[in-house]
């Protein structure tokens, strides 16, 4: 029997793992400086999932479903009662790996911290009942810090983490609501391999944002 805190942690791990944090800031974009607090960039994002709070948490008790959700790019290891270690590769390839530690703060709130990765980063996820019986709001806050070199090259100047976080939340929502994240890459087409690669780039921009 998996405890409630553990299930909750699995949800958080799902969020963290799907985010692909390294990738999130490795992209540049000049518009919209994110808010800054004590040297951290801070972004907030939320998504509404059409299931009650318990439903959202319970979804992650199904180990098989979770493994499928994390397929390939993340592993979870329990450190002690409320702490987990998550190790993941960037979702879109590139081979970069990163580790995060996840801590359950209270029922409905958890934090994570990247312990080994390209950027200093931490985050917080909270579940809140949505009004009018519309299910559950998953609210996330992401903070990250960049070194001077990255900043000089404009890598810091982006709302990309914002978009990546939104993409993550969208994926989590889809998994809970309909059990899959739709993927149309490599659907049949009359494209040559070169055209297909170019189209994959367009798809990624359309899926996650960023400059086309």
């Amino acid at each position: 029997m998996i405890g409630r805190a553990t299930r909750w942690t699995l949800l958080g791990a799902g969020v963290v793992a799907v985010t692909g944090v390294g990738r999130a800031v490795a992209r540049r974009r000049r518009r919209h400086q994110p808010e800054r607090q004590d040297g951290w960039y801070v972004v907030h994002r939320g998504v509404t999932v059409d299931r009650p709070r318990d439903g959202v948490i319970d979804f992650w008790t199904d180990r098989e479903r979770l493994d499928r959700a994390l397929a390939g790019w993340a592993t979870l290891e329990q450190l002690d009662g409320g702490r987990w270690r998550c190790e993941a590769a960037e979702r879109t390839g590139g081979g970069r790996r990163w580790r995060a530690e996840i801590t359950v703060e209270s029922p409905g709130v958890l934090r994570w911290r990247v312990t080994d990765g390209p950027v200093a980063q931490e985050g917080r996820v909270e579940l809140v009942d949505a009004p009018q019986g519309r299910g559950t709001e998953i609210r996330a806050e992401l903070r990250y810090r960049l070194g001077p070199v990255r900043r000089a090259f404009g890598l810091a100047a982006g709302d990309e983490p914002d978009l990546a976080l939104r993409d993550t939340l969208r994926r989590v929502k889809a998994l809970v609501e309909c059990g899959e994240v739709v993927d149309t890459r490599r659907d049949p087409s009359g494209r040559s391999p070169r055209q297909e690669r170019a189209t994959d780039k367009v798809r990624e921009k359309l899926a996650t944002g960023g400059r086309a």
Partner: protein
Amino acid sequence: MRALCWEGVGKLAVRDVPEPRIRADGDVVVRVRASSVCGSDLHLINGYLPAMREGDVLGHEFMGEVVETGPGVRRLRVGDRVVVGSVVACGGCWYCRTEQYSLCDNSNPQPVFTEKLWGHSPAGILGYSHAAGGYAGSHAEYIRVPFGDVGAFRVPDGVSDDAAVFASDAMPTGWMAADFCGLKGGEVVAVWGAGGVGQMAARSAQILGAGRVIVIDRLPERLATAAARLGVETIDYARTDVLEALREMTAGRGPDACIEAVGMESHDVGPSYAYDRVKQAARLQTDRLVSVRQAIMACRKGGTVSIVGVYAGLVDKFPLGAAMNKALVLRMGQMHAQRYIPMLLERLAGGEIDPGYLATHPLPLEDGVRGYELFEKKRDGCLRTVLHPSA
């Protein structure tokens, strides 16, 4: 397999492409038996709906036979003869659960473009560009249908392929257009556009209780077909002042409900049309608005304007003042296929609606390019070309 692909603005070709396979638990693969052209394809082919990529397989109005099912599929079996809604819906989000399927939250995996353009992303649509999810379309021997249990419906025996195919798109769109009008019985309903969608809207309005239906177009054979098949009155907008005619036919009131089933490439006579075309060609406006303007001007005070013709972006000279001061109700949207298809299949089987006559040009897939030419130029009385990939 063979498939009809988009090759650039105004260019199509039938090519060899890889076959689809099951990729998610809810997927089914359908062997396409009939796949129709639709007015929306013209907007895609001509580059007015954005985000098409070279090699994209077109087609979204189709029916066929289930040949493979994913492990999560419960309702369908291999061998089922099914019609598939054009709109992809997950079945599990709030919009799907409230039967607003074309607004599904989870079926467009590439939502950023439409989020930027429209604020939020509606559902994905099969064979309908990368802005609508980048799904391969149905003008092919086989197609992968995601969420098969939600989107594919068994066709009753006795309903022919070339009739059932229209339960995919033209019928639910027409039905929704009439449904939007909130008819109570006896109303006068005017329908702009005598294409497949307009004709199905006219028939649906009759079934839902309209007292009189008036169809507006300029193509004599389409108007004649509508009059003969449905018993509607018609107006040829190229020869008649539409607003005058409607006012006169309703003794000054104007139609109680106006359905717009033309879309962004609407055509007109006169100088303002030339102005609109130039602006659209230069992409200063994305849509031409002739028929929407007329519908708003013609509609009686407090009436309903129901728009199912497709629009993509920004328009010019939208008569907001008329709509506001006449207290009009404006309804619009992409159709909620899955909400209407089961009911429409029953009506089809019962003979209450017979859309088979829309399939004026049944052709093999190999003739797809010619099929679209016939449809776009409205040659040879073409209402809809229906491609038969397995023929």
